[in-house]
């Protein structure tokens, strides 16, 4: 690999990391409250409100059912509004985060919904309010699932960020397409795939270790 290729490679690597982490963090910050809202407003939830539940659920489903590549293009006006441009790494973060947020919200919802109802009942019986239940029961008890779900979301985002190359986002996927595929530089292709595999393994491993440390059930 030439020094120029090498620096291109390093740059692409960091672009992938930035896109994944930034959109991952946004999807965590936005998706977790959405998941909480979905669980709390569901039938029998701590703030039952079927109307809100249906509307939020429909919006989440709507975003989830649009293929990412279409979302990427459809969101260009919004991206331009937020970032000032529709091209580049930062521009790619907008559609990535918007796609990942409902995805993560559903994952978080599943973990939160699985919290034993008896625990919620116990805290209600102590005189706890909804916020107490969220803070002391739902979030801590679902934490292993919330973290495991975040790991899955990050891994999915690494894959999705490659597609964002289509709007000139850069990153490893973009590099592999432009050099490895279009210019038949097999070494680049192999290197990209190897790094992606390592990156995914690293994230998954970190996630698993964290979950094992956090999980105090059984």
């Amino acid at each position: 690999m030439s020094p120029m290729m090498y620096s291109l490679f390093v740059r692409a690597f960091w672009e992938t990391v930035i896109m994944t982490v930034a959109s991952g963090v946004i999807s965590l910050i936005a998706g977790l409250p959405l998941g909480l809202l979905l669980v709390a407003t569901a039938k029998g939830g701590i703030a039952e409100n079927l109307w809100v539940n249906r509307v939020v659920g429909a919006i989440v489903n709507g975003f989830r059912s649009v293929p990412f590549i279409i979302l990427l293009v459809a969101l260009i006006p919004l991206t331009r509004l937020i970032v000032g441009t529709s091209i580049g790494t930062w521009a790619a973060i907008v559609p990535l985060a918007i796609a990942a947020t409902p995805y993560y919200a559903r994952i978080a919802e599943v973990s939160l919904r699985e919290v034993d109802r008896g625990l919620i009942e116990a805290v209600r019986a102590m005189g706890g309010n909804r916020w107490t239940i969220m803070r002391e029961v739902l979030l801590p008890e679902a934490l292993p699932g919330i973290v495991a779900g975040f790991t899955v979301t990050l891994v999915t985002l690494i894959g999705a960020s490659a597609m964002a190359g289509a709007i000139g986002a850069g990153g490893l996927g973009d590099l592999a397409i432009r050099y490895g595929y279009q210019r038949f530089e097999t070494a680049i292709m192999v290197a990209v795939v190897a790094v992606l595999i390592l990156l995914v393994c690293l994230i998954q491993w970190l996630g698993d270790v964290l979950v094992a440390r956090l999980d105090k059930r059984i």
Partner: protein
Amino acid sequence: MTRQAPLPVPADAASGVADGVPNQSAAAKPVVRLDDVRRHFGTTPALDGISLTVAKGEILGLIGRSGAGKSTLIRCLNGLERPDSGVIEIEGSDIVGLSEEQLQPLRRRIGMIFQHFNLLSAKTVEDNVALPLKIAGWDRAKRLARARELLDLVGLTDKARAYPRALSGGQKQRVGIARALAANPALILSDEATSALDPETTGSILALLKDINARLGVTILLITHEMEVVRQVADRVAVIDKGRIVEEGPVWSVFSRPEADTTKALLSGVRASLPRHVAARLAPSATARGEMIVSIDITGPQAATLLPGLATEIAGWRLIHGGVETIQERPVGRFFLALPVSSLATLQAHLVPSGAHLEVLGHVADDV
């Protein structure tokens, strides 16, 4: 069927130790008073007009089969469930119609223990015990000190920093009890607290509840489907069936003379009953040289002297089954005798002064 008998209130219970406030009228005012409480789920009534009081400092056992409405009833007492109609008074104030926000301070006065413990898996034992105090706004140092105190009380000092997963079922329930006691409640609600435990652990948990009741004077409403649990701890028992209280009274009295069919069914296996092979041969009318089979229920000190006294007056009787047990420090005797038909009048006369209850169950043709 309410029995008139003195309430067995522990000596120090009436002094209002539980809430730390001396209360002159404490002995008179019940901790819980229900009047005609009703709750329907769809068309089936889960509570069908429940009237019940729980006196300060007593342990009331509420027993019934699965689906009788016990959990619904106990959940009405802290507002987790709302009745359709009726009065629910806790320490004298009606809680029906309170909003969720208004119920929260009330719930801090009531501790609850659950069948499946319901400990938070992500918190240590001491943090679980301290949680009601955190909700009540205590600062961390104070609430942890109080949690340690309670863990001492339930014998789990060394488990304070463990997570619930490291505890056995009995230990988890001890934590549950410590947690229920944390905020110095006036009332403890226990919903099948021992139903997930083995008999030996059940015994130790019940002993702990009894001890807490005696030492702290806290009132306990204990739900169960097992008469054995009632016998071990309760002062008074109320039997619930299909959402109605069918029988109520001091435990010794209900054990000695159950009246409702539900009570009798729940008691079978817990108290002496006629051996099956004898019951199978019972005939309704007397035969030529046959014997009759009777049951005698008797409470008090006379239970122990009944049979020796009988021996001097009647010849040819035999004890088939039965004996004397002690419930609430009171002898409760139940005997099944076979005796000559001709001695019935003598037996009846002999039993009159002791207040024993005699029932002729039937006749048998020859020796059994």
